[in-house]
């Protein structure tokens, strides 16, 4: 964050702008994966406590997103994709965004501790710290591996959901964490390949900007290759049944083929033709939704 600050808004901040600070679209994925972790756990969950756990995960994610926007207001102002956010657009003061993020973060952890359990609350607190401090403030502006590290932040919700249900850390929630952790780099690097100019302008050391497209494409493939056995692990250790196993195999194979198309047959293509990269990005979103839906379906169908 730099010393420069947008001027204070002339009007009070609209509640919709506070809501925008929580990155609602990202929150959709957070809620979905958190819910899947909760529903896939092998124990019955009280609906009220289950709802509370998901609410806390969502509010915690919203709080850390607000802190992220507070810290990155100057960077957001330089990128077309983010320039209309409440802070760079001057519709909100920085202090309001910071305080809003802190209140949401604190409240989500407190409510998780009181309503659900201390272990889930501790992991939620760490996930907020990880995203807002370790990722946003420390590593994102310093290393082209920022996406790999940031993947850890997005990987916490299903783990927290599972632990909220069981009250215990076992291999399965760790595997759910690992799936999102290894899914994140190919997902975001596919996006970064076709919005590369924006990141370069803002000075964020995104992989295509620092290491070049060739290296980025190769690393997308490496992560896609690793993702296939990792998504099969819940089936191999009997943590999930055949519905999940078959879905994971089919989805991960398609993911790998799309990544292969991006990595191997794309040397020397122009910027205009980014079809395979866009297809991989779009499929990666569907992939994660479908994989976690299969995990829940498997638990409910196979018992």
């Amino acid at each position, binding site marked *: 964050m730099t010393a420069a600050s947008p001027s204070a808004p*002339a*009007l009070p901040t609209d509640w*919709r702008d506070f809501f*925008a600070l929580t990155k609602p679209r990202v929150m959709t994925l957070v809620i979905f994966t958190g819910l899947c972790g909760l529903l896939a756990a092998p124990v019955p969950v009280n609906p*009220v*406590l289950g709802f509370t756990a998901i609410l806390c995960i969502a509010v915690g994610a919203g709080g850390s997103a607000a802190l992220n926007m507070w810290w990155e207001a100057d960077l957001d102002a330089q990128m077309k994709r983010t320039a209309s956010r409440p802070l760079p657009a001057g519709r909100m003061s920085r202090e309001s965004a910071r305080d809003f993020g802190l209140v949401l973060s604190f409240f989500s952890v407190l409510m998780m501790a009181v309503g659900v359990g201390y272990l889930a609350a501790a992991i939620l607190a760490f996930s907020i710290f990880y995203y807002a401090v370790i990722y946003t403030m420390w590593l994102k502006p310093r290393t082209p591996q920022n996406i790999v590290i940031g993947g850890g932040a997005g990987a916490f919700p299903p783990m927290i959901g599972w632990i909220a249900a069981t009250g215990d850390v076992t291999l399965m929630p760790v595997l759910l964490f690992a799936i999102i952790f290894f899914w994140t780099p190919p997902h975001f690097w596919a996006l970064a390949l076709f919005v590369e100019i924006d990141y370069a302008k803002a000075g964020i050391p995104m992989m295509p900007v620092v290491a070049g497209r060739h290296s980025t494409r190769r690393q997308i493939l490496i992560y896609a290759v690793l993702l296939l056995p990792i998504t099969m692990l819940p089936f191999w250790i009997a943590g999930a049944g055949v519905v999940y196993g078959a879905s994971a195999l089919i989805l991960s194979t398609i993911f790998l083929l799309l990544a292969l198309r991006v990595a191997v047959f794309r040397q020397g293509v122009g910027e205009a033709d980014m079809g395979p990269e866009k297809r991989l990005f779009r499929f990666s979103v569907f992939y994660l939704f479908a994989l976690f839906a299969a995990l829940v379906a498997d638990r409910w169908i196979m018992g």
Partner: protein
Amino acid sequence: MKQMPQFPEDPEAERKRIIKQRNLMLGGLLGAMVVLFYFISIARIGG
């Protein structure tokens, strides 16, 4: 996300409208929290 008008015709009326909406939203959220904590208490007492 809806863009706020940069120069509203009546800034004072716009200010009051925004504050009223925010107060309603905050009141609603606090009310929902009270109800949620009530149900959490029932759920935890029930074991």
